[in-house]
Every structure is written in structure tokens, then in C-alpha cells.
């Protein structure tokens, strides 16, 4: 019905890869293969279109950078979010601007769903390892429980992908296959472009909160616009 072929093996592989990118975000090893540019590319690769996945990943780099994890603040979980959004756009986006918008919206929503799942998991973790006076069971027991907590995080990320992978693909597919003459279709590139530029401004402020750097941001935008003229 949707024109997207997804085998059980693809789905299982997606769950495994999703667990790996989810694990990297906080638990191990924080080498940043959970960043959207990597996870999105990986998601696209699953459907043989790494460039489509990478493009969504780059958009999500900007949109999700609004919430840096300063001081342990709650932030969207980028890995599974970008992985699923990249895969969904690669599988079903058809290169349409509305497809990118849909995939980015999916990534944003899954990012926050992932953040909530992390919060839930952290309600379980204290019972494994946390005592105000310190863990009394010795180093070996602590190591076992620490590894169990990491395994639970991988399981959480895998389950997140298991539950949301197919709905993400379907959502992007349904939006992307709307006829180009449908009401408002011509406005999507404008909405997407201005929304992205606005998101870049919000992200830039979030990352440079200690100083006022808006002239640098404006200079970057102007430079980018000139580059577009050169490369067009």
C-alpha cells in the first residue's frame, strides 16, 4: 500500500543498530556515532540511500542542537531519533521538501520520546547501584551492576526503535506521497527553509550562551548565501 518494502530482517537490523546508537548517547562510549550526521547516514544506509539519511541528519544537527546537555540538562536523544528519521526519509521521502520536513518532525518527536524513556530508566537504575552512603557490595558486584545498567540502556534504545521504526516510515511516506498540487504544497519549501533558519538561530544562541555572538551568526548566514550563489 505504501510502496515501501521492509523485511523482518531489516526491522531486526534496525533495532540492533538503534540500540547501538542509543547506547552511545550517554552510557558507552560517547564517541558520538549517536550524532544525527552519523546516525542519520546509518539509517539511510539501511535502505541503500546514505545521502538521504545524511541530509536529514544534517537538518537534525541544527534542530536538535537547541538543547545542549549543559549541566546534565534534559536533552533529546539524538541517536535513535536521527537513525529512524534518516531511514524513514531514505525509504519513503522521495526527495520532496515535505518529506524532509516530515522526517525532521519525526526525528524531533522521537528525540523527546527517547529522552522520556531515559528518564524512566533512571528511576530503575538507582535500585541497582545507588546508595547515599556508597555501594557496599565490593568492586566485582559494582562492575556487574554497572554493566547491567548499560545493558538495560541498550535494551531501552532497541525497544524504542522496535516500537517506532515502522510508524516513522509510514508517517514520512504518507506525507511525501501527497500530490504536488495539493493545497499548500508550494508553501512547504518556504516553511521548511524559514523554520530551519530560525532553528539555526536558536541553536546558535544555545551554544554560545555565555556571550552575544549574533554578528558571527549573521556573517555565517551571509557567507553561506554567497556560497549558494557560487555553487548554484
Amino acid at each position, binding site marked *: 500500500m505504501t510502496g515501501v518494502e521492509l523485511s523482518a530482517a531489516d526491522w531486526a537490523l534496525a533495532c540492533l543498530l538503534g540500540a547501538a546508537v542509543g547506547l552511545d548517547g550517554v552510557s558507552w562510549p560517547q564517541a558520538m556515532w549517536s*550524532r544525527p550526521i552519523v546516525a542519520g547516514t546509518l539509517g539511510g544506509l539501511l535502505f541503500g540511500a546514505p545521502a538521504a539519511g545524511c541530509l536529514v541528519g544534517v*537538518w537534525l544537527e541544527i534542530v536538535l542542537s537547541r538543547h545542549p546537555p549543559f549541566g546534565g540538562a534534559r536533552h533529546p536523544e539524538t541517536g535513535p531519533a536521527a537513525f529512524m528519521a534518516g531511514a524513514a526519509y531514505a525509504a519513503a521521502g522521495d526527495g520532496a521538501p515535505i518529506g524532509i520536513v516530515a522526517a525532521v518532525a519525526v526525528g524531533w518527536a522521537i528525540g523527546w520520546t527517547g529522552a522520556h524513556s531515559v528518564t524512566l530508566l533512571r528511576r530503575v537504575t538507582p535500585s541497582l547501584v545507588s546508595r547515599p552512603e556508597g555501594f557496599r557490595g565490593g568492586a566485582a558486584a559494582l562492575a556487574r551492576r554497572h554493566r547491567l545498567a548499560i545493558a538495560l540502556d541498550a535494551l531501552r534504545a532497541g525497544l524504542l526503535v522496535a516500537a517506532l521504526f515502522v510508524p516513522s516510515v509510514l508517517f514520512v511516506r504518507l506525507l511525501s506521497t501527497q500530490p504536488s498540487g495539493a493545497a499548500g504544497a508550494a508553501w512547504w519549501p518556504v516553511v521548511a527553509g524559514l523554520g530551519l533558519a530560525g532553528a*539555526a538561530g536558536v541553536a546558535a544562541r544555545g551554544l554560545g550562551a555565555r556571550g552575544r555572538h549574533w554578528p558571527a*551568526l549573521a556573517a555565517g548566514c*551571509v557567507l553561506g548565501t554567497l556560497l549558494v550563489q557560487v555553487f548554484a
Partner: protein
Amino acid sequence: MRPRKKDFVRAISRSFSIQGSWNDRTMTGPGMAHALAPLLARIHEEDPAAFRRAVQRHSRAFNAHPYLAPVAIGALARLEFDGEDPDTLLRFRSALRAPLGALGDGIAWAGWRPFCGSAAAIGFVLGLDPLFAAAAFLLLYNAGHLALRVWGLRCGWRSGRSVASALKRAPLRRIERVLVPANQVLIGVLAALLVGQLPGTGHTVWWGGGAVIAALMGYFIPRHISAVAMASLLAACAVWLL
């Protein structure tokens, strides 16, 4: 006994999972004790009870930036090795938390990570192969990441109690001060390139000007409004679909 090289290697490899058992009560405390264990085991090799007490002590509440946690691992191991009393160790441990958190947030999360991410993304948008762009990001980023962890452990072990002045002498803040404005430029370039590439918009200057204005509006509007805008976009998708 003095820790051997392999103990330091084990400690640093365990530091990669320092947030593995992060929880709201003791935060990275258990991960910290897990990473310190190889060093503590060597230091207290002849006294298993002292080793057990040390592990318990270091699994109490602690938090620091994960990439700079090796500074604390090295410094705390040094103090254990020097035979400092438990109260001093706990006070020292508490004093390290805030500076390591703030310094790490600035250099890693606000500086190095967006710098590498934006540079790789710009490379991709300008025509780099996506797999190459992602691999280049991972290589570049982790070169800095690994260097920071190794430097942190050495700095902590060598400095011990005077680790605060060693951190002050290190060029981390100076690097951050260069990277943060550079990131603003890179984010601006990236946004303008992506907007310019959207099909159906044409490559007109007025469109680029609109992007600049939208970016500056995003910079100045209150944070909660941007969240509402994103939620509205999702709702618009749903309404259009229906």
C-alpha cells in the same frame, strides 16, 4: 603500591562508560568507582578491606563532564596513593564536581562537538560523500575526545591536590573562546546552504536574506516560543495530511 601503566589503561577504558549507571541519586558516582577500581585495587593491593572501603567511598554522589572525569580519576587515585584521610578525599571530590562540569560543557559540548559536526555537515552539503563526511566527523571528533581523556588522566595523577591550578594553566578556556564564535559562523553557513538547496525556492538573494532574518529572529526569540513553533509544525503536518 603504585599503579602500573596497565592499571591506568584499564581506568581510562572504563571511563568511557562512566555514565553507564547514571541515576538521579548518585549520578556518575557508581561509574566513577567502577573506573577507579583498577587503580584502587593496585594502591590497596595488600589491604582488601581498605580497597572495599575506597570503592564504597567513591561510589557516592559525584558528577562531572564525562570527558573530563579522567582528571578526577587521576587526582583521586593520587590522593589515595598519597594516603590522604577519607574526609579530605570526600571534600576534594565534592570540590572537583562543578569546575569539571563547567569546563567540559564549554570545551566539548559548546566547542569541539558542534565545530566538528558543522564542519562535516558543510562538507557534505558542498558535495562530500555522506559516508566520508560521517567518517571524517568521527575521526576528527574522537581525536580530540581521546586526547582530552588521556591528558585529563595524566594531569590528574601528576597534579593530585593541585589539580585546580593545573586546570587553570591548561589552554581549555582559550580553545573554547575560539571555538564558540567559530561555531556561530559555521552554523550560519550551514543553515544558509541548506536553505539555498531546497527545491522550488530558487537561488535568489532575497531568499538568502530571508534566511538571515529568520536566523536572527531565532537567535533573539524566547526559548519556549521555539518549542511552540516546532510543535505547530508537527500539527501542520498532521492537519495537512488529514
